[in-house]
């Protein structure tokens, strides 16, 4: 029989073997298990292997470090800090505060734009006053007629005459 098959316990007895290993022995079940162990190489091999494994683990694997002094207190402080910041975020005034901030920012931006625009408008004529003044004088294309036109033909003649004069 190979070493591996020697370690295979009968599935029916596995929970009992675990109890047996832990020293939790119900008298009736223990008697039944002892009788079985005497005749079953798989179960007795597995029990012995399980004992070895337990010993190895207990001897060489270090348990978790104990909580450091004040762990509970530090955790409570962290909880309170989180609680406070959550309370600020969810308070009644929080949305209004956010709205007020946004309003103030928009108003500030609007005011800045307005001031900028006003400066451009008021400064521009000073810089190019003459040019602007010239450009605002309309060029007369049509002179005032000498007399009031009597018919459609008069109007056309006046217009064509004025056009020729301009050329």
């Amino acid at each position, binding site marked *: 029989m190979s070493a591996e098959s020697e370690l295979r316990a009968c599935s029916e007895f596995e929970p009992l073997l675990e109890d047996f290993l832990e020293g939790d022995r119900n008298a009736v079940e223990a008697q039944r298990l002892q009788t079985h162990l005497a005749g079953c190489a798989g179960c007795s*091999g597995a029990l012995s*292997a399980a004992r070895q494994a337990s010993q*190895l683990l207990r001897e060489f694997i*270090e*348990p*978790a470090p104990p909580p450091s002094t004040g762990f509970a207190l530090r955790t409570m402080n962290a909880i309170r800090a989180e609680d406070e910041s959550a309370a600020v975020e969810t308070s009644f005034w929080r949305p209004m505060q956010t709205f007020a901030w946004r309003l103030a920012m928009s108003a500030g931006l609007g005011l800045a734009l307005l001031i900028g625009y006003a400066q451009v408008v008021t400064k521009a004529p000073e810089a190019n006053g003459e040019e602007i003044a010239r450009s605002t004088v309309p060029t007369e294309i049509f002179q005032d007629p000498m007399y009031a036109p009597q018919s459609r033909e008069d109007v056309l003649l006046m217009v064509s005459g004025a056009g020729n004069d301009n050329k």
Partner: protein
Amino acid sequence: MANVPNSTAPDGSGNRVPSFRDNVKERELVRLCQDGTPDAFEELIRRHQQRIFSVVRSILRRREDVEDVAQQVFIKAFVSIRGFDMRAAFSTWLYKIAVNECWDYLRRKRVRPLLYEADLSEEQNQHLSSYVATEKAPADASKRAELRQTVEQLLDQLEDSDRQMLVLKEVEGLSVQEISEVMDLNINTVKVRLFRARAKLVEWHQRRQPRAARASAGKRRE
């Protein structure tokens, strides 16, 4: 806001002295927390901190990260305690938060639980065999460290859940009942899986032993 009597020493040393708060039932403490008494939660932390450290350690296997993750577990528990309906024990609920937090933490850090090289060297096998034969741990610190690493390597052959179960049982000292709560498994399933996981560890070691050593180990068992 209701007050839970303080149980720290009057000299401010932080050492606990027994008080009637120790007798307050867990359900009562949970109810106080749900009604907005954070002091009651501090008592719950004190009662469960060691077990939570054990659960976290059994999954992460890195001692240095245990405290941070354990603290996060308690913060999450406090935040969601109003949703706890007390149908299960508080400890069961807390253990589940701990297990989820550990896996989230490992995902965030993008690491697997600490793993060791898969196979054992011949030398490691020999040292382990001689320990199994004599059942005497070496006094030399470096040899002990080497054996510890060998046992960790053997543990890595197990599935994550079996390894966690075994560490909780053998190293952290949790009962089968507690493990069944932590892992949300039937008690009989835990017993069977524990028993098989232990046998597997030794089986792996034996497979790597030379035939002669195996035969002599078999004789010793008889």
